[in-house]
């Protein structure tokens, strides 16, 4: 027996383990992108201006009370039914003559909204309602608009509004002069004008 050097520990499999870890993290990590529901506040109103009158039938009233219960058009409602009710209201198209709505598919109930442009959703919150409920209700109301916009967009351009809007938003900055972009912008704006998001938030009530 000649001199034998001490055997080296084989560290080759360490690399495999590290790769396993790497792949595991790659798969499980969700990179958090900040996202949220966009909203616009009304500018402060000068005292001498009186707000324009809106016909009662064009207002869709949503009340949230301190127990997080929903009162929609003076009736109790579950949150899951809210979107359908809002869609029905916005899409009613009950107006006559110039106030009519050619693209609406609703029931044309004269007691409900004239057209989507006139229709206003009013959301009133009790101060004691939780933010959870508030966001959910708000989300469901925005969803009603999205559903209608998608429908209209599919009908006109064979593409949902959401896809179109995403394309519009992610258009490369350097190619904004092209006619394609201008056409897309026009389409997005048209759909938006057909179903403008009119969501008003009145001052919440004290409990």
């Amino acid at each position, binding site marked *: 027996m000649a001199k034998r050097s001490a055997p080296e520990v084989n560290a080759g499999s360490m690399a495999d383990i590290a790769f396993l870890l790497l792949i595991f993290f790659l798969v499980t990590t969700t990179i958090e992108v900040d996202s949220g529901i966009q909203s616009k506040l009304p500018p402060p109103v000068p005292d001498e201006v009186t707000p324009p009158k809106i016909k009662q039938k064009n207002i869709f009233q949503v009340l949230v009370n301190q127990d997080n219960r929903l009162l929609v058009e003076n009736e109790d409602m579950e949150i899951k039914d809210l979107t359908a009710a809002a869609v029905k209201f916005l899409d009613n198209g009950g107006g006559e003559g110039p106030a009519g709505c050619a693209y609406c598919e609703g029931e044309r109930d004269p007691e409900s909204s004239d057209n989507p442009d006139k229709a206003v959703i009013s959301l009133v919150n009790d101060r004691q309602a*939780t933010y959870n409920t508030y966001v959910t209700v708000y989300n469901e109301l925005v969803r009603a608009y999205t559903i209608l916009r998608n429908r209209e967009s599919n009908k006109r351009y064979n593409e949902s509004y959401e896809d179109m809007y995403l394309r519009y938003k992610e258009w490369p900055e350097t190619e904004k002069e092209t006619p394609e972009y201008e056409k897309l912008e026009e389409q997005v704006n048209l759909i938006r004008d057909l179903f403008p998001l009119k969501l008003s938030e009145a001052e919440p009530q004290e409990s």
Partner: protein
Amino acid sequence: MSKFKKQKSGDLPAISTASLPDIVFMLLFFFMVATVMREDELKIENKLPNANQVEKLESKNKLIYIYIGKPSAQYQKTYGVTDVIQLGDKISTVEEVQTYVNTKRNDMPEDIQDEMMVSLKVDSGSKVGVLTDVKQELREAMALKINYTAKNGDPMRNLKK
């Protein structure tokens, strides 16, 4: 024949571990890129609700963050247990919102001041009351573009307790 047999008796060549550092670096870089740094140290609870009508937020330099929620455990002695507002690093009152927004807006480059947006990070368990006060202040400060920051998910999960 015996010539070939002799060669076999040598030690196994050591396996090079030179690639290990590469792997560690890969991991390191991955996390460095993927990690989002928190701008402010949170002194309140801030669990965002779920929503599915969300849009991606604008780039960070156009955003102003306002946090609302209950003070976290170690601050409850000082600030109580009701919902409070956190502006930047410190817990503030409603009256300070306007000043804060205006200072932040003036710090921005002039050409993006109009695109400024306020991101409201409100804890899902808090009450709407404080939020409403903040919104009134924002209206006064002419910061009209706001955003209810939420996680992308099923909103119905908010309601299950």
